[in-house]
Each structure stands twice: as structure tokens, then as C-alpha cells.
């Protein structure tokens, strides 16, 4: 195979894997934003924390899927508790106060993880291999781990789609997000749904945290760039559209991979920042926003 084409193919494959993880994390942000108009800056720290929970269990010889499930449950629980204890009392106040509170959670959880689990790099296992496939004598940037990541995010996306389109709970959540006041009058317990939304986002974030860690090293601030990438992907997708979040994530993953492959890997975050500014200035509603006009 031609070397240039091989390079491009590998860059695209890499971008796909990166992008799908970003998409998963962006989904978590969108789940909260579309029902509460809040961006949860602590989402990354929550996901980092649950990944450490999984690693601690794995180090105690828990089976992989048991650790995976417990981490997800922890993410669900943490999301619900944070919504009840920190976010709920601040609702209706100034927008900036909630932003500052989630930033406080961001730092506090990160520092807490460093105290509990240490600041060193620790390797996080993947349930499948991390060596790339070979076609003939060509090495592909596609590993069993990246296929595992793609499949897992696929399950999450399908699960969320079914939840929001087929179940009573999901439909009520959409109704409450669309018009909380009317839903309340119709007898929907909107406050329970908000808590559930945060819990669900915590669960999806926990999945993203484990996926990005699979076959890599983790440390308390390993989610820092993913928070930014997830935010950018969510903004590209319009912040309240799950489909937009996935497309935004894939797009950003590809851009990152192209910049890293053809320009310089050190400039990826800068390129992502520039992309964010361009999107916010030219199309502040994102590419998939459901509402026509909005002040951002």
C-alpha cells in the first residue's frame, strides 16, 4: 500500500476512535445542558473519579465487567447526589453561581482523587488487545481496543435513543426539558427528572472516562483535555442535540488527528480552541441546534 495513503488511513482511523470517545463525553454534557441549561464543568472530574474506582476494584482482582458496572453505578450515584446537594439549591439564582459551583466541584474532586488514589501515572487495562491489526504487511491504527470503544459508544447511543424515543421515562424527560412549567402542571415530577438527568449524565461520563483510559495511563488530571474537547464538540453540535454531540465529537476527533498527523501534535489543543472560536463566532447556535436563535 502507498505510504501516503496508509498514513492518511491511519490518521482517519485514529480520528474516528478519538472522536467517538469525545462524542461519548459530549453526550454527557448535552444530557445535562438540554434539561437544565447548565454546563457541568465537573463532568470530567466525576468520570476520572469513577475510572479510579474501577481501577481500584481491578487491582483487587474483580472481574473486568464487574468493575466496569460498579464504576458506572458510581457515576450514576455521584451525578444524582451532586444535583441534589449542590446544584438544586442554586437553581433560579445567577447563572454565574452555578458555573462557579461546578468549577469548585471540578477542582475539589480532582484534588480528592489525588489524595485518595495518588498522583502517579497508573496503567489502566483494556479488556481486549492493544496491538494494531495488520492487513498484509501494513499496520493499521485500528486495535481491538478501538473496536471495543466504538462498540461501547454504539451501545450507549442506541440505548439513549431507545430511552428518549420509546420509553415513557425518556419521553417525559424530553417533555420536561422542552417546557418544564407545562410538564409540571400536567403532573410530571420535573425535579425527579432533573436528578435522573444528572445521574444519567454521570453514567455516560463514567463510560467515556473508562474508554479514554483503556490501554492508557491515568492520573488525576487525565480528563482535563477531554473536558475541553467534549465542550467544543457539544458546542459544535448545538449543545442540546445528542446527534449533534456525536457528529461534533467525530468531527473534532478527525480535525485533532489531522492536525496531529500533518502539522504538530503539540498544536492540537490550540487548533481545537481556534475551531471553537470560529464556530462560536460564525454559527453560535452550533450546526445542529434545535432552536433557531439564542444568545450564547
Amino acid at each position, binding site marked *: 500500500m502507498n505510504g501516503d495513503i496508509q498514513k492518511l488511513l491511519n490518521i482517519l482511523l485514529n480520528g474516528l476512535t478519538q472522536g467517538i470517545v469525545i462524542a461519548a463525553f459530549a453526550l454527557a454534557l448535552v444530557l445535562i445542558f438540554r434539561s437544565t441549561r447548565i454546563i457541568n*464543568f465537573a463532568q470530567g472530574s466525576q468520570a476520572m473519579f469513577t475510572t479510579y474506582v474501577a481501577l481500584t476494584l481491578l487491582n483487587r482482582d474483580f472481574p473486568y465487567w464487574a468493575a466496569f458496572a460498579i464504576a458506572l453505578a458510581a457515576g450514576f450515584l455521584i451525578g444524582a447526589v451532586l444535583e441534589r446537594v449542590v446544584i438544586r439549591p442554586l437553581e433560579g439564582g*445567577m*447563572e*454565574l453561581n452555578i458555573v462557579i459551583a461546578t468549577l469548585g466541584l471540578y477542582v475539589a474532586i*480532582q*484534588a480528592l482523587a489525588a489524595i485518595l488514589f495518588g498522583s502517579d501515572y497508573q496503567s489502566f487495562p483494556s479488556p481486549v488487545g492493544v496491538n494494531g491489526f495488520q492487513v498484509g504487511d501494513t499496520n493499521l491504527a485500528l486495535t481491538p481496543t478501538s473496536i471495543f470503544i466504538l462498540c461501547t459508544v454504539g451501545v450507549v447511543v442506541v440505548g439513549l435513543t431507545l430511552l428518549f424515543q420509546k420509553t415513557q421515562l425518556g419521553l417525559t424527560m424530553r417533555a420536561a426539558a422542552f417546557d418544564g412549567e407545562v410538564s409540571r402542571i400536567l403532573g410530571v415530577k420535573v425535579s425527579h427528572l432533573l436528578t435522573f438527568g444528572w445521574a444519567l449524565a454521570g453514567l455516560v461520563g463514567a463510560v467515556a472516562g473508562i474508554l479514554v483510559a483503556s490501554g492508557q495511563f491515568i492520573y488525576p488530571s487525565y480528563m482535563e483535555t477531554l473536558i475541553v474537547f467534549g*465542550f467544543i464538540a457539544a458546542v459544535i453540535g448545538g449543545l442540546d442535540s445528542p446527534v449533534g454531540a456525536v457528529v461534533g465529537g467525530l468531527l473534532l476527533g478527525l480535525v485533532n488527528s489531522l492536525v496531529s498527523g500533518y502539522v504538530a501534535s503539540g498544536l492540537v*489543543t*490550540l487548533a481545537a480552541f481556534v475551531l471553537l472560536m470560529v464556530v462560536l463566532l460564525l454559527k453560535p447556535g452550533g450546526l445542529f441546534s434545535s432552536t433557531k436563535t439564542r444568545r450564547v
Partner: protein
Amino acid sequence: MSTDSTTKRLLDLNLTRNLLISLAVLVAGMLLLESTDRYTNTQLSSLTYYAIAAIGLTALTGLNGQISLGHGALMAVGAYTTALMLDTETPLPFPVVALVAVVVTSVVGFVVGIGAARLHGPYLAGATLALAVALPSVALYFKGTFNGEVGLTVASPRPPEWFVSFIDAVSGEFATSSKYVAYLGLMCLVVALFFALNLRRSKIGRHWRAVRDQEVAAEIAGINLGRTRVQAFVISAAYAGLAGAVMAIVVRLAAPSAFTIVLSLSVLTAAVIGGLGSITGAFIGAAVLVFLPPWVTSLSTGSGLSDTQAAQMSPLIYGIVLILVMLLAPGGVMGTLSTAWRRARLRRPNPATPTQKG
């Protein structure tokens, strides 16, 4: 005619008042520096740059309602500019260097501000967070100029003759380089304070508040929303640049690891603890940032935590404090005090009201 002269007198009054406050801070700072040991002197030097940065951020967030998580990165711009300019055989005097650092950071702030002006709340927080993560990578990419991960060592400015003889006359001691740095920090802080005091009472400050509180009304009153927001961001960035310049000579190093997102959040914590919009609050917050960590660290190593664990106690406390302040006293120290004072004053004319005693 008479109203004209009245406003003029009022303006003079304000200006005189602000000048007096600034001078009082200068004298108090000098007294503090001369009456404390070397270690405390270094802590006070750190306090000066934290206070400058916190004043800049408290003005942006408190007066104009914009939030920035990129102030750590903007401080990096000021610090690297200072490091590069001092790294010559015959460096320019520090005030000139600091001024250049302020100008360079303001230019960066202007570019970011143009984008930021159209954003608010969570969008602005996210965009500036992206800036905070992106900017250090520039230092890593241009290794030749910024020396990558290691960073640049800063040649500390040497105390000039007149300073040595001045300190000798004041305290009879020999003026060390770190004492000179502390005085430079103090001077920068006083200048920054004087500007901030005037800004708050000026037309500019009123415009900022108008844009914060009532966008639509401000626009109808003829205030250009975009321009006002960019202006606030640029001025705030200038403060961050000055803070970065002082930080460079105090820490004597400009490295990417010093300008992480945690620095941005620390400055935000200082502004929030003190009370957003309050300059006195910015001082209180900066003091907390400087004096709390050593105390917490020694307390936690004393109770059996390892050094690396103890180092994380301060960010943990910052985070918890940010949450608690938002939940319990969103006005911060100064906001809570002024509310309490106002309540007490309202109660006084009516002695029949039973006072609650605990």
C-alpha cells in the same frame, strides 16, 4: 455652570480619596515588609501578584459579569514576556519590562476578548477554559524560544544604588534582591489598585455595571455592548499581564507547569471568597491564597498525610470553599459584611425591634 464645577469638585474628591487610599496601602505594605522576616517577605511578594490578578478578575466578573478561566494563561503571557526581556546583558528597567508585558497581554486579551464579547455564562467559561488548556501548548511547541517543559529561568532584577541606600536609611539593613522584588511587586500593586479604584467610579465602570445588569437597557441608553465587553476583557487581561510579570520575578521561573488550569481557578477562588466586584475582597482572597496553603500543608503532614497528598489539600479546600461560598454566601466576605452592615443600619432607627441574641 454650578453643576459643572460641582461635578469637577466631586471628581477631584474621588481622585484625592483614591490617591490617599493607594498611598496608605503603599505605606502599610512598606511597614509590613520592613517589620517581617525574609520568609514572610517572599510570601508578601506572592500576595502582590495574586492580588493584582484577583483585582483584574474581580473587575471583569464582578463589574462586567464576564467569567474567565483563562487568566492563568494570560498571566503566562506576561511572565514569559518578562522572562524573555530580562534575559539580556543589559536588561531594561523592570517598570519598562512590566509595561511591555502588560501591552503584550492586552493584545492577546483583545483577540480573545473579541470572541468572548459575544459569549456569556457557561459559554464564556468553556471558551476561556479551552484557552487555558491550549496556551501552555504554545510554549511547548516553540521550544527554541520558550524552552519547552523546563521553561525559562528569570534573571531577577538587581537592586539599584538608590534603593540600597534607601533601605539602609529606613531599616539599616542591606537590600537583598528579594527585598527589591518585594518592593517592585508592592509598587505594581499600588499602581494597579489606584487604576482599579478610579475605574470603578468612572463612566467606564458604570457602563460595565450597566451591561452586566441590564443588557437591553444599557444598549438603549447608547452603550455599545460589544465594545464595553471587549474593553473589560482587555483591561482585565492587562492586570493578568502585570500579575504575570511580577510572578516571573518573584518565582524566577516561567514554566508551563506553573500556569495550569489550577492557577486560573485559584485566582477565581480569591475573587469569589473576597466577594466578586470588591477590591478589598480581592486583597482578602489573595491573602487566603498565600497564607492558607502552608498552614494546611503543615497541618495535614502533621496528621499523617504524605507530602504529595498534603500538597493536594489546598486545591481540595479551594474547591469546597467555592461551592460553599456559592451555596451559603454568594457575596463572599465583603458582600456578606456589607449586607450585614446594611441590615444593622436599617434596624437601628427602630429600637422597638427585638434584637436577637444567641
